[in-house]
């Protein structure tokens, strides 16, 4: 299946990723009814994700922990290889490429990680950390020009260029995340996967980093895949949002549409669960319940529920929901929703 929009930067088609958790051969063997059997178990982290990302957008991938959002990001970057399905970048398939063939894409695609304490090498000075990607990807450029570039990028992310001789531990969390962003910007990428880039930061610092990411996008024409669990960040930062549940996309649309009129029961529950400043108050009585409450908890991704993965927790589930997987269908408002109840206009 080819993407409909020729401008599409990144295309995912029916992406699956399973992780084998059955352990060693001896752990897999079991003896029952006089027969030796071998059982293998896998965690189904992504179960058929298809997505088109167009240049200049900030597509947010949201969902609760374990829904597969980080796995999608890592699979796109080639840090994981998909079990099934394809990743195309500018209409060229990249998921099966070998190291050397993949190199040009590493320059175009960069990643920012959640924890700036873990993602910077503590034994390298900031300047060295920033020089490394430039030395690797632009060996033709002179050393002086590279140092000049480091100074420019540091300036752009709001870290004084003179601090290049310092080491990561000498910086605060917010400054470290600026340095991680600077490292991603060093190779002039087109596309950035930002995996929870502000989740480890305090509110006042979070605002600084979000503004920086936004500014970088405007000045450099970046495209983001922004992975987060924080819906208020999505509403602010994203242009489109994809809501994931147990490795599938359940709703995909512009942030404005999805936030103003969520269709999928899971999206509705997720949106009503965020405690917002000023919405609740001390008058909040015990009888006040969030208008939509989910039954139970997320099922294990080792044994996926049949049909719609959400049916066990859904108030609108009927027989068809346990039998058939709902496809993503475009609704009148242009939002894509994977839900039988929405398709049958029951909700």
């Amino acid at each position: 299946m080819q993407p409909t929009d020729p401008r599409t930067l990144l295309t995912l088609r029916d992406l699956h990723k399973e992780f084998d958790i059955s352990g060693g051969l001896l752990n897999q063997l079991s003896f029952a009814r006089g027969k030796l059997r071998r059982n293998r178990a896998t965690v189904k982290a992504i179960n058929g994700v298809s997505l088109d990302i167009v240049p200049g957008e900030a597509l947010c991938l949201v969902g609760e922990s374990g829904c597969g959002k980080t796995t999608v990001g890592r699979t796109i970057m080639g840090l994981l290889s998909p079990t099934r399905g394809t990743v195309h970048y500018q209409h060229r398939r990249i998921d099966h490429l070998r190291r050397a063939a993949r190199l040009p894409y590493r320059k175009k695609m960069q990643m920012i990680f959640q924890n700036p304490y873990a993602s910077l090498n503590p034994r390298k000075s900031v300047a060295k950390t920033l020089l490394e990607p430039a030395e690797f990807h632009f060996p033709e450029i002179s050393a002086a020009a590279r140092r000049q570039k480091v100074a420019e990028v540091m300036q752009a992310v709001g870290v004084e260029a003179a601090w290049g001789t310092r080491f990561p531990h000498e910086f605060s969390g917010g400054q470290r995340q600026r340095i991680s962003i600077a490292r991603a910007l060093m190779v002039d990428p087109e596309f950035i996967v930002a995996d929870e880039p502000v989740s480890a930061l305090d509110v006042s610092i979070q605002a600084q980093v979000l503004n920086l990411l936004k500014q970088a996008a405007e000045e450099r024409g970046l495209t983001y895949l922004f992975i987060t669990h924080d819906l208020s960040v999505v509403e602010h930062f994203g242009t489109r949002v994809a809501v994931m549940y147990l490795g599938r996309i359940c709703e995909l649309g512009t942030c404005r549409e999805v936030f103003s009129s969520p269709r999928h029961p899971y999206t509705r529950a997720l949106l009503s669960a965020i405690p917002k400043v000023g919405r609740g108050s001390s008058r909040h009585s015990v009888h006040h319940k969030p208008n939509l409450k989910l039954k139970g908890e997320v099922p294990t991704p080792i044994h996926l529920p049949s049909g719609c993965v959400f049916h066990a927790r859904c108030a609108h589930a009927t027989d068809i929901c346990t039998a058939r997987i709902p496809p993503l269908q475009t609704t009148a408002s242009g939002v894509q929703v994977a839900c039988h109840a929405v398709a049958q206009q029951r909700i």
Partner: protein
Amino acid sequence: MIVERANKLRDMAPLLSVNNLEVVFPLRSGAVSAIRDVSFELAKGERLGIVGESGAGKSVTAFAILNLLSKPGYLAGGSVRFAGNNLATLNEESLRRIRGNQISMIFQDPMMTLNPVLTIGAQMSESLRAHRAISRRQARRIALEKLQAVQIPSAETRLAQYPHELSGGMRQRVVIAIALLSDPQIIIADEPTTALDVTIQAEILQLLLRLCNDFAVGLILITHDLGVVSAVTQRILVMYAGRIVERGRTEEVIRRPLHPYTQGLLAALPEQTLPGQRLQQIPGSMPSLQEIPAGCSFHPRCQYAQAICSQASPELSAKGARAAACHFPLNPAR
């Protein structure tokens, strides 16, 4: 009549009263105060929130109440009055009778709080039997009762399970059940929902709110999340660099913040800005405890700072429900 008035007076008296608490950590580079001049009161059944960013001293305050500070930190001054005792000077043995009994704590990460090699039932009765002389059977019955109070499905089977067999939300429910075991008067919850997903967080907050009401338990909720405090608490204290900078009824503080720091925190929330607009930001970051600036500790980041702010430290008035430690408070009360 006299008894009635005496009863009324007792009910009015705060359950917990913290006065001028100071915690000092001696470091190689010299001693630093992690918190200074922290004073507040908690009434019976009241829900109080302590908010602030990391390093503001919220958790140190919580630990200081129960004198649970990790070495080398120590209580350098102040008092914590609870049930006729000063917890700051009480000996270890008497303190142990209060901790986990009359005042319970809930921590952020349930996996760190629960013992991984004991079943849920075993750790619950261990905690009960440490405080009360009761039989195993009685302990089991109380444990079951509390697990049902926190709405754990099939509570009976959970007693025989180990922490790793439960999900994060279930584990936090077990931790809350353990905190409830001895019918405490106060629960101190340190970021109880930070490690949980939003839908689970909503359930746990709802549960805490219900338990506080049903059992008239006082709650001290420590969090960095203004949305969470606003959903659960009646009053809040805002902390910055080891001091309380603002206090008041939750609604009032959020609607009309007096301190520029509180205002900045609220304005920095993405939901306060129109989608696509640039977020309001507070420049810089919180000073480390060794480098707290002279005068008001917020002045280098404050857009309203004047000459006096870098010279004199503004005091938080001891009186009144609403106060801010600022030379030029915003929205002054009419």
